[in-house]
């Protein structure tokens, strides 16, 4: 009986939904029931199944078993995104899907079925009022490409509100590319929707954002729901425990192995120091400043941006103009997205590792046919790479082994002084992660200084000797036993509070910034 009434009231319901991708279960019997006006935060690691839930709730993928209902109405499996949109589902993506060269008006009209007799003037009125309803102040004739990302997200949303009333609002990392002010605006708008009865599912890596706005929090782990409770009853400790995957810490390097200081990073409100033989973590938000620092170290940022941080490498000013200069200085970089920025999918696996080194380790004029055979064999051994032979295109390897190839490129053939890695274990399974952590530790043991930039605490905790939490130009340092998942997350929160001017936290168990800073100081 009680079960039935719940089904009557729930606005968005998933009942024991399973999603299989081939033999892999991405979503494992997830049941959720979201009331009108509820804002639910969806948390979990990469691979936990957050995106899969959003994808099935917006019609991008089918599910294997279970049912999905909106206002008690069952949605047929295999419904298209259009069907879901008609049922009242709207999605805000991290990157809104507008066509940059078209005007706001044209973008809003795309895919919208006006009645044939409607005049252009009437269409413009409709579009303008849809925008005005959301409080968006943009010229409807300006090209979408000239808007900020925040504005584009809003236009994208207005497009869906124009065709149907929004009953379920899905947000996929909406604030990843937004500034503080835009985030505020977005949150205000979400609250407005919720107050009108819209159910909101909010996916974000940004814990502070989730805590700021969500009344209820659901945590996923490898496709299963491991926590579902009101935000007010959750302490930071609970959240940290739920998010920390419990990967074992590896043995840290003994202090006597730590060599001479080699790299200093100076920012307005903090410094980062790294020595040879150390593995240093740079922890921050998803697409946070730790990643731009990592890219800057490899000469990728624009010069103006780099003014915010200055580098000293081996007691000399270091401001690489491009990757060529960085490599010449012994600074190597593993980019965060292995497939887009790292590997060349159609190239043989072996070539993908050797590519930067033909000229430097071999010769420009003659590279023998079997150049690098031994090196490649060594790489596979050291990183425990499995899969087909080295002549096979790298695209045919599994994700973990692709990542290992990318790491091998920068770890094995030549010796780095400073090796910067962005998300080195992203999207790889536990086994491969262990192999990577061991290889990184070994490399540090040989005297390399290794920086790991990440927004996942376990990545930092599992392989680093020391770590810095970075937000904006502020830095906190953690070392020894203080370096754990909870401290990193709390440190990030405390920095977020400092940045937002000491605004009261929305969780009862919030830590005062001062306490963390004290705990972190050596």
């Amino acid at each position, binding site marked *: 009986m009680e079960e039935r009434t719940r089904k009557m009231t729930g606005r968005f319901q998933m009942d024991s939904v399973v999603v299989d*991708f*081939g*033999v*892999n279960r*991405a979503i494992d019997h997830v049941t959720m029931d979201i009331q009108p006006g509820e804002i639910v935060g969806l948390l979990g690691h990469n*691979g936990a*199944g957050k*995106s*899969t839930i959003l994808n*099935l709730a917006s019609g991008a*993928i089918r599910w294997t078993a279970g049912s999905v209902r909106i206002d008690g109405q069952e949605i047929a499996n295999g419904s298209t995104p259009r069907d879901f949109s008609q049922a009242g589902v709207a999605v805000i993506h991290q*990157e809104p899907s507008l066509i940059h060269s078209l005007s706001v008006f044209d973008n809003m009209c795309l895919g919208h079925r006006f009645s044939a007799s409607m005049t252009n003037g009437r269409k413009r009125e409709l579009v303008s009022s849809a925008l005005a309803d959301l409080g968006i102040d943009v010229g409807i004739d300006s090209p979408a490409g000239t808007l900020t990302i925040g504005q584009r997200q809003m236009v994208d949303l207005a497009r869906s509100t124009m065709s149907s009333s929004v009953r379920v609002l899905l947000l996929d*990392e909406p604030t*990843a*590319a937004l500034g503080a002010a835009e985030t505020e605006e977005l949150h205000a708008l979400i609250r407005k929707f919720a107050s009108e009865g819209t159910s909101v599912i909010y996916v974000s890596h940004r814990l502070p954002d989730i805590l700021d706005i969500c009344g209820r929090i659901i945590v996923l782990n490898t496709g299963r729901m491991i926590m579902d409770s009101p935000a007010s009853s959750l302490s930071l400790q609970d959240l940290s425990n739920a998010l920390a995957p419990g990967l074992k810490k590896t043995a840290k390097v003994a202090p006597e192995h730590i060599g001479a200081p080699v790299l200093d990073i100076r920012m307005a409100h903090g410094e980062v120091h790294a020595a040879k033989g150390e593995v240093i973590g740079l922890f921050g938000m*998803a*697409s946070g400043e730790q990643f*731009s620092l990592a*890219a800057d170290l*490899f000469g*990728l940022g624009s010069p103006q941006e780099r003014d915010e941080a200055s580098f000293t490498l081996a007691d000399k000013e270091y401001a690489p103009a491009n*990757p*060529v200069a960085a490599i010449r200085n012994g600074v190597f970089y593993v*980019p*965060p*997205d292995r*497939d*887009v*920025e*790292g*590997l*060349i*999918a*159609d*190239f043989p696996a072996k070539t993908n590792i050797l*590519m*930067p080194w*033909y000229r430097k380790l071999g*010769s*420009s*004029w003659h*590279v023998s046919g079997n150049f690098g055979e031994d090196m490649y064999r060594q790489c596979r051994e050291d990183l425990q790479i*499995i*899969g*087909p*032979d080295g002549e096979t*295109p790298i*695209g*045919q*390897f*599994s*994700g*973990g082994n692709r990542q290992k190839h990318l790491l091998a*490129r920068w770890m094995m053939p030549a010796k780095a002084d400073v090796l910067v890695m962005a*998300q080195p274990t992203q*999207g*790889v*399974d536990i*086994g*491969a992660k262990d192999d990577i952590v061991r290889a990184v530790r070994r490399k540090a043991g040989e005297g390399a200084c290794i920086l790991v930039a990440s927004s996942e605490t376990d990545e930092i905790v599992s392989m680093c000797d020391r770590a810095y939490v970075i937000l904006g130009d502020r830095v906190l340092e953690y070392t020894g036993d203080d370096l754990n998942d909870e401290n990193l997350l709390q440190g990030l929160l405390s920095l977020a509070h400092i940045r937002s001017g000491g605004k009261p936290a929305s969780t009862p168990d919030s830590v005062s910034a001062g306490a963390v800073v004290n705990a972190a100081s050596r």
Partner: protein
Amino acid sequence: MKNLNLGRLKILLAQNGIFLAMIIVALIFGAINPRFLSAGNLLTILQQIAELGVLSFPVAFVVMMGCADMSVGSVASLAAVLGGTVMVRTNSIAFGIIAALLFGFVAGLINGVLVAYMRLNTFVVTLGFLSVWGGLAMFMTNGATVTKLPMPFLMFGSTKVIGIPVQIIILAVVIAAAWYLLNRMAKGKEILAIGGNQRAAYLMGLNVKRTQMLVLAFSGLFAGLTGVLLTAKLGAASPSVGSGLELQALTVVLLGGIAFEGGSGRISGVLAGLLFVGVLQNGLVILGVSAYLKTVFTGAVLVIAVMLDKSIQNIIKSAWKDVIAHKPGDAAQPAQETKEAVTDSEGSAATAESSADSPAAVGTSADLPGSSLPAAAVNK
């Protein structure tokens, strides 16, 4: 290794399909008219396509790099009339050749600078210069052909070394050099890397811009050389001598299995494409097909080849899966790959869907729609 590896065989066949097609077409022509397969005619075919070949291999590198060079035809034309005019005026063959080659190199360099350093679209830039140089060639000569070239130069066009026409020897040298560049020099691999993933190539510390500029400059240089060779063969420098060559070269390259998107390519493929065009054009003439229909056939063959190429790529992809699946002595591997695919499949539903039919999760990264790009944040 007792078991014949069927997957590898398939890949080999798919990659060399154009060779097979060329042989089949040649046999058909031979069956209709035995004269076609005579040694003399085969040598004629080579001689007919020599200049096109000299041009096609540099253009192949341009395409491998992910660029295009539509200007080569006009560069050849202007190089021809420029070289011819200089020869007539100075009565020096050397000056004429140097002028032609220098112009070709400079024209290519201009393309290179505009494409690599000003980041202009390679297709648009080179198409623009196709008009510019072609028009200038006509303007310089008022549309007339430059004649009365020095005698020794005209003799050169019909020179034979141990019975082999000099054009064929030059073509052989170009092929050998192209093979060496692609397979034995760092630069060759870098060119492919830039075509395969320009961003990744840049992040490897490769000098992407300089490489792009140089490859386009050399494409121009060889277009200049082609103009000189054609002038020598025809005995006069016509301002339209190179017209249409850019499309023919592109046809050869694409027939040779080089993807228009860049990143892949083999010299043997380009050679096969070149021979195919040679066999087809010569065979049609021998069969008495109208010369006007020659281009019709060539164009149709190109479209068919591109159509086939798509299925060939699929064959290669699935064949790689066979190779991986049947690799002996790696029994433990599929289980491991499956495990990884769990974490691997989350980010984008499309990937997961595309790999749904293969538990090994071997969908290539190129198929990924860029769902979320942390990269964008890093280099904002």
